[in-house]
């Protein structure tokens, strides 16, 4: 069965006054308008969210959708897979489209991270790690990626300057994206280099921000004038903790999901024109280059040094600014990647449009690779 993505909607990402309720409404309304599909034609809703419980004291988010849209009382689910909640929700929604009578499924990712102290929020995000192995040993989220950064540097010679280049590139892309968290912020290499250390070797500018925001896509069995192809989606899992893995320089689940999705779409990595990758930390973007097969293990630093992944490079990565600078409202991030793919494939991405973008791959990772979702979307010829 051919599947399509027919519409995308996204709120501004950033530290926002809006509540979960308002964010969910804004993204959904924008998405349905973009898809030219009224809500009564939506057969199922999948809400992607990570931390509304501890951060916003709100659970039961599938029902929240019906509180927002009083006319909707159809089937609705909430998917939680830490930072891969959005990608996992898309994969689940694609599965739902194979059920009898389900023609349109709305995926809406939403997150409200602001409003609690950083100490509290850091501990809540650490819930994505293993309770016994990671959380109790202080391996908070940036610490886990810092371990990968250290190992990547030891094994392949990746430098702090390489990490800084990822940050610089994604901030520059976000300057072209009006809904990005850091749209208005100009960032220089000096600022990145001099930013305070969070977890050695990662500095503040190696980390994605704590953002609020929502994003929605409408997946469908029906092709419309707004459609792009949902060519493939794949989801793979792994242990919560790095301690149970054989490698500290790669995320095996991401590798497996990427090769599975490419095989399903009958594409090779060289067929992909642009990428949305999960750069929760700068090192994660470099590891993604290698896991996706953009280069061999250890080759990521050369790609960023040579500018291959900038907007005008041979394989643009994170044209919207990525999690680093578009922002990381966790449950919404994976959905926002798909939103960006729709815009790029329809040639509607404005100043950040990748020329001739016909195939896009989205790579969304939960925790430190415990979940990985890869989605491939292609333009309709």
């Amino acid at each position, binding site marked *: 069965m051919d599947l399509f993505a027919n519409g995308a909607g996204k709120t501004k990402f950033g530290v926002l006054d809006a509540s979960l309720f308002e964010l969910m409404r804004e993204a959904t309304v924008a998405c349905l308008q973009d898809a030219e599909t009224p809500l009564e034609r939506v057969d199922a809703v999948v809400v992607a969210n990570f931390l509304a419980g501890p951060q916003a004291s709100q659970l039961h988010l599938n029902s929240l959708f019906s509180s927002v849209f009083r006319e909707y009382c159809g089937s609705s689910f909430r998917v939680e897979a830490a930072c891969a909640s959005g990608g996992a929700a898309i994969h689940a929604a694609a599965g739902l489209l194979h059920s009898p009578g389900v023609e349109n499924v709305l995926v809406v990712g939403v997150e409200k991270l602001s409003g609690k102290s950083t*100490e*509290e929020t850091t501990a809540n995000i650490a819930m994505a790690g293993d309770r016994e192995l990671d959380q109790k040993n202080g391996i908070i989220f940036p610490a886990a990626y810092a371990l990968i950064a250290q190992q990547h540097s030891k094994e392949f010679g990746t430098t702090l300057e390489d990490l800084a280049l990822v940050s610089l590139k994604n901030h520059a892309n976000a300057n072209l994206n009006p809904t990005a968290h850091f749209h208005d912020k100009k960032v220089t290499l000096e600022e990145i280099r001099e930013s305070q250390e969070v977890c050695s070797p990662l500095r503040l500018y190696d980390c994605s921000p704590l953002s609020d925001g929502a994003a929605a896509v409408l997946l469908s069995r029906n092709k419309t004038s707004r459609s792009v192809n949902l060519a493939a989606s794949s989801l793979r899992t792994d242990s919560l903790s790095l301690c149970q893995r054989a490698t500290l320089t790669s995320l095996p689940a991401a590798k497996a999901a990427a090769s599975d999705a490419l095989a399903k779409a009958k594409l090779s990595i060289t067929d992909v024109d642009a990428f949305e990758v999960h750069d929760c930390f700068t090192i994660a973007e470099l590891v993604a280059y290698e896991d996706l097969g953009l280069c061999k293990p250890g080759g990521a630093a050369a790609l960023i040094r040579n500018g291959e992944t900038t907007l005008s490079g041979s394989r643009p990565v994170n044209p919207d600014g990525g999690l680093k600078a578009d922002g990381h409202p966790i449950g919404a991030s994976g959905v926002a990647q798909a939103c960006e793919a729709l815009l790029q494939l329809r040639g509607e991405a404005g100043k950040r449009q990748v020329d001739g973008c016909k195939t896009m791959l989205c790579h969304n990772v939960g925790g430190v690779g415990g979940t990985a979702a890869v989605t491939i979307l292609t333009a309709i010829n």
Partner: protein
Amino acid sequence: MASRTVVASTRVHAASREHPDAPYTSGICRTGGGKLSPFKTKQTAQPGDELLEKPSFDITTIGVVGTGQMGVGIAALCAAKGFNVVLKSRREETARSALEAISRQLRKTLGTQQAANAIARVSTTTRFQDLKCAQFVVESIVEDEAAKREAFRQLGENTPPTTVIATNTSSIQVGKLAAETAHPNRVVGMHFFNPVHAMQLVEIVRPQDASGEAVAKAGALAEALGKTAITVKDSPGFIVNRLLLPQLNDAARLVQEGVASAEEVDEAVRLGLNHPMGPLRLIDLIGVDTAVEVLRQLHAQTGEKHFAPCKLLEKMLAEGKLGRKAGEGFYTYKRK
């Protein structure tokens, strides 16, 4: 214990709810058996380093002397963190009730199986000689210099010279207690705060004669118990009580002078100074007798008048209004 070689490490500067003690180092090490396992340490550690503190950390059994609130809290914490505990009390009856209190506390903070395991690690005794199997002893009896001196004389005679003896005193000069033993170099202060399981700080007190090894062991034990240790000179009231007790005394004096009621003083301090608990409720929690004794000690040691317990505290002590444990202090409490 098996060796632990650092594989990956990061210095964490970001404090979080469960780890407010940043900066610290976290990472992954390889144990002797080749298994990867996570670690956290206050020290710095680079790949290839051996994690030293745990292998050289030979403490498996901890003696706790005294079955008051602090003794019970310390014993419960040690058991929860995997140490064997020998709890020494004066009478079998108090030993039994202390063991019950420890069990209650462990059941509240741990899962059923973990609590059962921890409770099984605690034994009680009334004889000092049964503490000879402990590599570390924490004395936590009543805050009375004569009684503590006697306890230290007994501990000195009944434990091997390699055993570190720590006192949980909040106000008595640790050096004086050390002088009661034949090996004063193994005596340190280890001042926990009430409630022991919740309060993050331990003051490690370093008397003049204490060996570096004894002080380091006390610090390592504090870390193993999940606490943050601050090392301080053997001085009146150390840091916290030297600052706190004058304030408690002044708060009681405000009530004595009729400036405001106990409730009002507490409310003012909570809201105006952002303290989690008002000073008078805090006196009730630590006990009027303890507060007065610490004030007297501070007064005697510093000669400064403002440490002398105010009349109201002396009166409450005489009337037995000792606070929460007596059912009445500045507030009244329902008996359990």
